[in-house]
């Protein structure tokens, strides 16, 4: 053995991959996986709000230990910071995020702009500067996000040494993502970061001044969500939109009432939707509280907040229907905050997905469930086609994907090969989401996903295969042979069928103990059976049917 080692020694001189190249490969792999993670972002955000952070109320102004420990209200009080980890962050990044205002008081709301429009989640970290570096995260912040996941994250911050989990990457565009500076954060220099390898976004923030007391919050509305706003933390004069998942008929005017600590005031303002789709002229009867114009559909109905609103909690209700949602109005940005950054390459963050059909992720993994959204509520079927494509041409495998059963798209989505539409045409509308499953057998590559609809309704997705399975179990097994009078019957092993070739014995002349033994896979096509009597039988993997051969 020693001699052979010497002969093989030159192989030990082969160069391996430099660690830098390995790191780059790791980043690419993680980026790919995170892109697919966007599909489950919504669910994750809900879990984040319900699990990591104490869910007793709104969570605002609550100090929560990351290990699920005691929750202590600390609003308006300054507490000592948890002991920062001695390890400084290895990443000296202070770019990618623009924080406005650059100096804020504890408890104030700051806007995070992302000029590069990178995909991101709703969790950020607040890291203090000290000992010549950025300490590990001391607070985890939850932004109000954007897009279809903007309702996630009921808690605004948690305290304790990081790192904090990064949720899915369901937000993109230039922002702003809005976060609250913890009202217990001591004054000093901080950075706010979003750590999602390979994208690290950070921006500096100076915390100074007396803490700001949060306004009293009204109790949660316990009625079905007939109306949802596109974001729930707003500054005066800001545009946002209203959505109506159940498509209730309504007027184009909405009312705004303020929470005074004990109840809702009378309406203090009316918001007029400027939806261009509502072509019917508005009719205002003299003395009428609301215009009589009726509209329907899922929205979004764009509206603009008045410029002169006081900070606090408000309730916005659609006209003529009992559909309301709550928003928090915060102070306007200081006049000396500087220019609001905009993206030069990516459109500003929209308040709702654009286009008639939007997939929650454009990079998906075979076997994943993917959500499809329909912002305009277009009528469609309950089936979709997924067709392989190359250079814009439809090639390769084709599948029909059926949404999960039930009116809300819940249930188990299904798929089948081929493109037959038979029996899958009932009309459906609403903004969704519809849940479909990417066939686990779909090979990796570019695909086009299309809905059945009057208009061309397609999105392009990139399908990846899931990570390879963990190491295979042992390819050796105890085994029992079955015989017939002219040989050995095919046997099943490792999920495959194997045929004896040639059969050294049969039912008429098998030695004692020959039918109990051990079978071992020699490679993918060949296995060896050794009976307890020492007899050896060679098996080959059987492709196709096995026919009983004639007896010799």
């Amino acid at each position, binding site marked *: 053995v020693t001699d052979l080692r010497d002969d*093989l020694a*030159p192989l030990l001189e*082969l160069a391996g991959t430099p660690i830098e190249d390995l790191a780059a490969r*790791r980043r690419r792999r*993680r980026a790919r996986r995170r892109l697919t993670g966007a599909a489950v972002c919504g669910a994750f955000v809900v879990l984040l709000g319900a699990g990591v952070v104490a869910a007793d109320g709104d969570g605002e102004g609550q100090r929560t230990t990351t290990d699920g420990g005691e929750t202590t209200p600390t609003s308006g009080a300054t507490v000592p910071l948890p002991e920062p980890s001695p390890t400084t962050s290895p990443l000296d990044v202070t770019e990618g995020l623009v924080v406005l205002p650059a100096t804020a008081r504890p408890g104030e709301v700051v806007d995070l702009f992302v000029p590069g429009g990178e995909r991101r989640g709703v969790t950020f970290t607040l890291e203090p500067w000290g000992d010549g570096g950025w300490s590990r995260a001391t607070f985890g912040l939850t932004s109000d996000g954007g897009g279809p996941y903007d309702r996630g994250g009921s808690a605004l911050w948690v305290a304790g040494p990081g790192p904090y989990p990064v949720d899915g990457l369901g937000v993109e565009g230039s922002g702003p993502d809005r976060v609250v500076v913890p009202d217990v954060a001591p004054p000093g220099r901080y950075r706010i970061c979003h750590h999602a390898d390979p994208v690290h976004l950070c921006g500096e923030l100076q915390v100074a001044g007396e803490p700001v007391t949060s306004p009293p919050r009204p109790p949660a509305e316990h009625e079905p969500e007939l109306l949802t706003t596109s974001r729930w933390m707003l500054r005066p004069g800001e545009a946002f939109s209203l959505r109506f998942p159940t498509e209730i008929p309504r007027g184009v005017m909405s009312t705004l009432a303020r929470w005074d600590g004990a109840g809702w005031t009378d309406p203090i303002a009316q918001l007029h939707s400027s939806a261009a789709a509502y072509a019917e002229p508005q009719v205002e009867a003299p003395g009428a509280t609301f215009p009589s114009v009726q509209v329907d559909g899922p929205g979004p109905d764009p509206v603009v907040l008045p410029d002169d609103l006081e900070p606090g909690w408000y309730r916005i209700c659609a006209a003529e229907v009992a559909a309301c949602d709550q928003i928090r109005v915060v102070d306007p940005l200081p006049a000396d905050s500087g220019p609001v950054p905009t993206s030069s390459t990516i459109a500003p963050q929209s308040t709702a997905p654009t286009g008639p059909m939007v997939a929650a992720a454009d990079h998906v993994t075979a076997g994943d469930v993917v959500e499809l959204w329909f912002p305009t509520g277009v009528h469609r079927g309950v089936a979709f086609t997924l067709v392989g494509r190359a250079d814009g041409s439809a090639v390769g495998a084709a599948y029909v994907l059926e949404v999960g059963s039930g009116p809300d798209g819940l249930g188990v989505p299904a798929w089948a090969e081929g493109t037959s539409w038979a029996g899958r045409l009932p009309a459906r509308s609403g903004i969704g989401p519809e849940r479909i499953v990417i066939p686990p057998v779909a090979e990796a590559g570019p695909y086009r996903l299309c809905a059945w609809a009057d208009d061309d309704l397609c999105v392009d997705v990139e399908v990846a295969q899931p990570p*390879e399975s963990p190491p295979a179990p042992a390819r050796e097994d105890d085994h029992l042979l079955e015989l017939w009078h002219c040989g050995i019957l095919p046997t099943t092993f490792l999920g495959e069928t194997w045929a004896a070739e040639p059969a050294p014995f049969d039912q008429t002349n098998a030695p004692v103990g020959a039918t109990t033994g051990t079978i071992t896979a020699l490679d993918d096509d060949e296995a060896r059976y050794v009976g307890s009597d020492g007899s050896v039988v060679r098996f080959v993997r059987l492709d196709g049917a096995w026919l009983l051969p004639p007896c010799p």
Partner: protein
Amino acid sequence: VERFEDWYAAHHHRLVAALTVVAGDVDAGREAVDEACVRAWERWARIDDPGGYVYRTAVNVARRRARRAGHERRLLTRAVPRDRAAPPADLAVGLWDALRALPRREREVVALRLLADLPEQRVAELLGIAQGTVSRALHDARRTLVGELAPIEDEGATP
């Protein structure tokens, strides 16, 4: 806790050598090592036995790719004559050819026992076979390789 970078620096040469023999090809072996190491790096905090994890994963990756290559080769075999791969490094041509001609299991055992320098019991655990099977495969492989090497040494001894 050992850092991944330190572990990689200490072990990757043996990994590449062993997987080159397992895969029968330098590039395929290196690719299997890279893939296994990246996976290990991602899970570094949760892996108790990095060596076991990486060797087992790399062998599985190499097997999977060999299977795929085998299918392609069968499809192309009539159209494209099979290349005779040049030996890597300064390995003797005859030894390299003999290594590649070994049955898969014997090749894996040689790689893990002689190049990765793992004990037989450990090789048996990683490949999911009995230790006796490892011993037998190593014995068979050694007999084959020494038989192939003898003519080479004889040629080298000829003036």
